[in-house]
């Protein structure tokens, strides 16, 4: 059973809908025991970074604890950005610090937010993208982007007048800047892959 963290930000329901559409068991919860019993955790997010961190509150420690114990964790959009150390969106805020690096504004000189469908190129060995070939379009909607400094992390990029990190994987910790739950068939496949990763990890 996958637990999507319910912490009063937008689009949590869409993530659950997408898992269910795939035939995957999923529950929306913020109960620490439910989170601890899950096969995998999804940290969704349509919100500003600071608002999301505050809304997550004490659940942040639970998410961190289970992630450090090896439970698969998938961060989406702001949930992905929160995996890093800090963000400067509407003030300086601390993230979960599970992946080293910071979240900064996308540099000027292009239309911002980076909004719409962009092509993500997959490097070798990123389990999230299994069965999707070497590249695929996904839906992005963000004004800030993460700059990982973790040498152990595998990274997939998209091009927007510069390389933008679209996805990160470090051991059991996964993050996607785009919205798989809004990226049609390709996005549904990413969520299904995460579900399979969780099933494998728990068996």
């Amino acid at each position, binding site marked *: 059973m996958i637990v999507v963290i319910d912490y009063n*930000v*937008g*689009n*949590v*329901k*869409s993530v659950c*809908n*997408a898992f269910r*559409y795939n035939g995957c068991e999923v529950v929306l919860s913020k109960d620490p025991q439910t989170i601890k019993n899950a096969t995998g955790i999804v940290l969704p997010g*349509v*919100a*500003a*970074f600071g*608002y999301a961190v505050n809304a997550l509150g004490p659940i942040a420690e639970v998410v961190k604890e289970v992630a450090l114990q090896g439970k698969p964790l998938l961060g989406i959009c*702001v949930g992905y950005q929160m995996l890093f150390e800090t963000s400067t*969106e*509407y003030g300086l805020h601390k993230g979960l610090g599970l992946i080293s690096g910071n979240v900064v504004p996308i540099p*000027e000189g292009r*239309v*911002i*937010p*980076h*909004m*719409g*469908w*962009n*092509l993500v190129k997959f490097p070798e060995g990123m389990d999230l993208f299994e069965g999707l070939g070497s590249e695929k*379009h996904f*839906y*992005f*909607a*963000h*004004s800030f982007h993460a700059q990982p400094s973790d040498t152990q992390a595998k990274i997939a990029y998209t*091009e*927007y007048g510069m390389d933008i990190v679209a996805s990160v994987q470090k051991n059991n910790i996964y993050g996607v800047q785009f*919205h798989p*739950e*809004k*990226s*049609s*068939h390709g*996005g*549904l496949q990413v969520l299904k892959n995460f579900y399979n990763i969780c099933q494998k990890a728990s068996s």
Partner: protein
Amino acid sequence: MLTRRIIPCLDVKDNRVVKGVNFLNLRDAGDPVELGARYSDEGADELVFLDITATIRSRKTIVELVEKVAENVFIPFTVGGGIQTVEQIDELLRSGAEKVSVNTAAVSNPNLLAEAAQRFGNQCVVLAIDARRSKDRKGHWQVCIKAGSEPTDIDVVEWAQRAEELGAGEILLTSMDADGTKAGYDNELNKAVTDAVNIPVIASGGAGALDHLFDAIVEGGADAVLMASITHFGNYNIHQMKEYLRDRGIPVNL
């Protein structure tokens, strides 16, 4: 490379999709959930649902509609029509909408844009502008509110710039003069706004042929093109639009 977006617009009244000409003479175009799912299957990049009645009763219906769409459609969609408060935005986002568009309420209370952006991030705050060519000032457009029924003295380009500063993450720019005419987008309007702001602009109003889409992107500088009549009444499907654009060198997600 970021692709240009094709966005069908579903104007919703009494749980049906309708479409008129210059905001009048509405025709029935089908069930919103079915139509939304069909467009998603055809390859639409996004959907926009506008509650054109926007009454207290219709607000409840639109939340239920958003929930139903979100269970069946896995592409982003924007919801708009009569939205006045951050709480209403929150409810729609939590029900499954990716973005919410505000129009009249942002004109009477511009701070709504800032409040919404600080809470939800500017990427889900869409400012909808209904623009009408000014009779007195050539090359200018007036902002109209209350579903286009009430012209204001506000200049469209100035309003777009101010909205960007306040926190709007996107502008849905509808030409009332062109809407429903199928005679092409108002690309002077589109260009005036896309030149003035740095956030994405969705061109709306007037699409009737494939070259209109191309012109809105190339001449108007639009990041996305919105259409209703030409898709609802079967002139072209989304796939044909994308093929046409791709063959003329526009990046699309096909």
